[in-house]
């Protein structure tokens, strides 16, 4: 149950940070003001997170405990890293290239073992969506240094 405790701690921290942040909003606690509702929600989250920390295993569904035993952590962790890299690469490399690289790496990470086929799909995906969105739909996607 350590994992659950850590998550409860994260929720607690979220509640505390949100509560402190709302204290600076508005100039009072009137019901018509902008502070009351978010502050109350944050305080409630703090209380609920504490209640969860006391008994993290209460009425836990069976599939949860089962899943806990079979988790392979590196895969989701790498996927998150890949996603963040993707988001940052969008502006840097342009939509088409960033998408092609991300798609190729993600399919490999998620267990596909046909890198050649995947790279073809990845490039097609990036170029076609980029073209459709910017040429036909007037939706601006980041173009990167080479205008794609």
């Amino acid at each position, binding site marked *: 149950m350590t*994992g659950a405790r850590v*998550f409860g701690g994260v*929720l607690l921290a979220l509640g505390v940070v*949100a509560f402190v*942040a*709302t204290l600076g*909003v*508005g100039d009072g606690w*009137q*019901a*018509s*003001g*902008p502070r009351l*509702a*978010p502050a109350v*929600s*944050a305080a*409630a*989250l703090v209380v*609920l997170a504490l*209640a*969860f920390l006391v*008994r*993290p295993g*209460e*009425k*836990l569904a069976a599939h*949860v405990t089962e*899943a*806990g035993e*079979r*988790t*392979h*952590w590196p895969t*989701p962790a790498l*996927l*998150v890293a890949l*996603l*963040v890299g*993707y*988001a940052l690469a*969008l502006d840097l490399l342009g939509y088409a290239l960033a*998408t092609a690289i991300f*798609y190729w790496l*993600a*399919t*490999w990470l*998620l*267990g*596909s073992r046909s890198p050649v086929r*995947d790279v073809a*799909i990845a490039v097609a*995906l990036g170029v076609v*969506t980029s073209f459709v*969105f910017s040429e036909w*739909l*007037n*939706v*601006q*996607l980041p173009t990167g240094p080479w205008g794609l």
Partner: protein
Amino acid sequence: MLVLAANLLDGFAAVLTPQNLLLAALGVTLGTLVGVLPGIGPALTIALLLPITFNFEDPVGAFILFAGIYAGGMYGGSTTSILLNTPGESASVATAIEGFEMARRGRGRAALATAAIGSFVAGTIGIVALTLVADPVASLAVKFRAEDYFALTLLAFASVTALTSSSLVRGFASLCVGLLIGFVGIDQLTGQSRLTFSVDQLGNGVDIVIVAVGLFAVGEALHMAAKLRSRPDELVPTEPGGSWLSKQDLRRSWKPWVRGAGIGFPFGALPAGGAEVPTFLSYATEKKLAPDREWGEGAIEGVAGPEAANNASFSGTLVPLLTLGIPTSATAAIMLAAFQIFNLQPGPELFETNSELVWTLIASLYVGNIMLLALNLPLIRVWVKVLEIPRALLYAGILVFGTLGVYSLSGSVVEVLVMYAIGVMGFFMRRFDFPIAPVILGVILGPLMETQARRALTASGDDFSVFFSRPLTVILLILAVAAFVIPHLPALKKRLAFGEDD
């Protein structure tokens, strides 16, 4: 009545020409193709295509094209919700919950079919309702004040708390997380930033689509990645058989369609009703009425109801638009602009001064609905092919698709990162059995309730009697309290009975 029928027939006579039918078909196809693209909802689709209508001399053709594009755009949004777990707009968030589970279990065809037919049925009911009750509904709708909207959202909130899980603590913690996400952004009433932590892009708030795509698509992809090593790559074959909906599916779907339409239309007709609340209300209603179904594992009622509610709510928004000239959604605002191009001024006198055009418009919407059904049922066979893509490619594709949707919606990387962060959160929530639905509810209902309550209190000068001074508010509040209490009555009774035994 007879006059109404005659008017509607005249409308159909104006619409049903080969050229117009072709336009309707074009509109539906264009709308569906654009609607399935991530981040492009019906409003933007119509805005992009508005300039074509400048070329029409005759408003009938333009209306027909519009009606087709709109119907197609709405349906396109549901398609991605069901097949890829990435809702493109707030109104199809509820559809994704059961729809994607159905698709994952090889029932994508039935899910898409019940969505398409449900949209048609609800559209039909909505248009009939619009024809018959537009005037009385409109005069009732403008009686709603901020305090009534507050009471109404409270009622909606009470009715959907059934969506919380077995553990009250975890359910309410999820709800609070949702509320806090909902409060992020610049406060509508005072212009102050709340919970934005000095990030400019958060000023606009966190769109419900960003939350839904994060929780559903990204959370699910991470969940899948975590179990990858323990389960072999399996593909669920699409159900065999020629028909889209089995007899049993149809039997399970038709009541949710009708109920969904019944919930969606009045909400749409309210100037601040929207489509999100009725879709979730419909979802909760179906879950309450048939608790034994495979909820969370692809219950068809959970697709049929919300899809119908979504469509009927659009017919509802035409009530304030046509009778009062009040656009209540982005799409309605664009339609209003389009009407003005043809010197059609929606408003209280529209039905008298321009009755012919109004009936033509209503007939157009009807034809658009039929055309949608005619074109999209055969297309389902094509769409479900998506599910035959190997799992790794599909999930990587879903991530690309979701990212593209959020990026084109917001135009910034910050929102994309926020979506990923919400996805990570969703992953852990799944792991520790925190329910997801309350987060979505918090994001949708929290700000609505808060804004309306504060508007009422601003107008009254922080005097709470505003919530008890008019019968309408009081009735809604009593209903809300009843909706909170009634589900717990049996348990309460039981406890009391045991108490007597002791």
